């Protein structure tokens, strides 16, 4: 008797895991990634004839709790209509009872892959500001992301930045929460990676610490989130993650192979955003974004008190073009004077 090869078994297993989309308007194309509590596939919307991303619970017959949580994630996303947040198109239930939702299929690169192609600090900071805008919008709608990290940011082919995977999102304000969200006071998504490869990279995978405990990603989650203080989480927890994200964006190597030098103002911004004590962090994402914008405009940042030398250097950097023009003019004038005196 012939035994099946490991590859064949793997293929069969993958085929068995694929969701049955019969009875829906979608046609499955391929598996794309694994999200918060399910698998993301690319699918074809047969009615609208467009490609969508379809997120579905990865195991049929899972409990209602997970189904409710996936539905809740879809509703959170539906509430967040913003160019920087991936829009939800549809929700539904498969024949096997699995809940799914479809969203815009983002053709782009994950931030951790994309950032290496961005050479200048200015461009990296502008990209970061777009992330801040999306997160600030979510905060204004009373939603915390709680799992901001490079793997959850996508950069599209036209430079559009999209914050993905709101599976760990928490609704902050009671008035913002819908009825079914209110039935989930902890608003916490719990899910274990099912496969070895899904959990292989600990720095990229969300950590599970047990029921009722907030998850996140080491290095990107705030200390209070790591301690599981669910009640203590507020927008400053996301600000910590944004600070860690900013440090990542700024210290990744450029195509030239050299990591951009982090100057003191940027270092101070990162340090303030990722302060151990949340009271020491920026109060809002707008404040963080404003400091980054001030840096981009060549102005002093609130997080760092400059010395006179730093002020002079910043003044020179800001007006370098004009200073050089005036110096060039003066040099020319001196030459003219010497020539005319002869």
């Amino acid at each position, binding site marked *: 008797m012939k035994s099946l090869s490991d590859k064949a078994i793997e293929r069969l297993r993958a085929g068995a895991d694929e969701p049955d989309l019969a009875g829906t308007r979608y046609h499955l194309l391929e598996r794309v990634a694994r999200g918060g509590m399910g698998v993301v596939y690319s699918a074809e919307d047969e009615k609208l004839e467009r490609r969508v991303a379809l997120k579905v619970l990865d195991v049929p017959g899972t409990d209602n709790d997970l189904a409710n949580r996936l539905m809740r994630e879809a509703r959170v996303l539906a509430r967040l209509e913003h160019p920087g947040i991936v829009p939800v198109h549809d929700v539904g239930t498969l024949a096997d009872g699995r809940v799914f939702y479809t969203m815009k299929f983002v053709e782009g690169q994950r931030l951790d892959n994309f950032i290496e192609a961005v050479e200048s600090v200015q461009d990296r900071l502008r990209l970061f500001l777009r992330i801040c805008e999306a997160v600030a919008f979510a905060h204004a709608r009373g939603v915390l992301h709680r799992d901001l990290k490079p793997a959850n940011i996508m950069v599209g082919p036209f430079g559009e930045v999209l914050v993905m995977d709101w599976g760990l999102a928490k609704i902050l304000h009671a008035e913002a929460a819908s009825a079914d969200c209110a039935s989930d006071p902890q608003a916490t998504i719990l899910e274990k990676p099912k496969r070895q490869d899904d959990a292989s990279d600990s720095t990229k995978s969300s950590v599970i610490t047990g029921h009722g405990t907030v998850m996140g990603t080491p290095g990107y989650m705030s200390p209070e989130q790591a301690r599981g203080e669910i009640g203590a989480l507020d927008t400053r927890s996301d600000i910590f993650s944004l600070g860690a994200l900013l440090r990542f964006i700024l210290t990744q190597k450029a195509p030239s192979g050299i990591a951009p030098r982090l100057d003191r103002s940027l270092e101070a911004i990162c340090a303030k955003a990722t302060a151990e004590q949340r009271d020491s962090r920026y109060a809002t994402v707008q404040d963080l974004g404003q400091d980054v914008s001030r840096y981009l405009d060549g102005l002093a940042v609130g997080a760092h008190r400059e010395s006179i030398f730093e002020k002079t250097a910043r003044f020179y950097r800001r007006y370098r*073009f*004009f200073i050089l*023009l*005036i110096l*060039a*003019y*003066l040099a020319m*004038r001196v030459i003219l*004077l010497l020539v*005319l005196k002869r």
Partner: protein
Amino acid sequence: MNKILIGLLLGALLGAIDGGTAWFTPAVRAQIVGIIIGSTVKGLIAGVAAGIFARKVNSVPLGILFGLAVGALLAFLVAYMQHGYYLEIMLPGSIVGMIVGFATQRYGASAATTPATR
């Protein structure tokens, strides 16, 4: 900062420096204050003209050429009134015009943006 303001500030600054160099010519040292004021106004006019031109025409070579022409013309008028020092006045004045012509083309907002409406 818009182009006209850049032209105005840079033109005035370079014009003042330009006038200040008259101190190195002993024959006119006594009139240094008047020369500096006149030269500043001359640079200012050239700068504003270059700024207005830059808002209408987006071309570095044409901007430089326009600045050169305006600077040279204004400097010629000054030299004509002085009845002399044509080279000493016109050469630096033309270069100031070129510099502001270049600066206004390369830098500054070309026009006020209309705020988006809901």
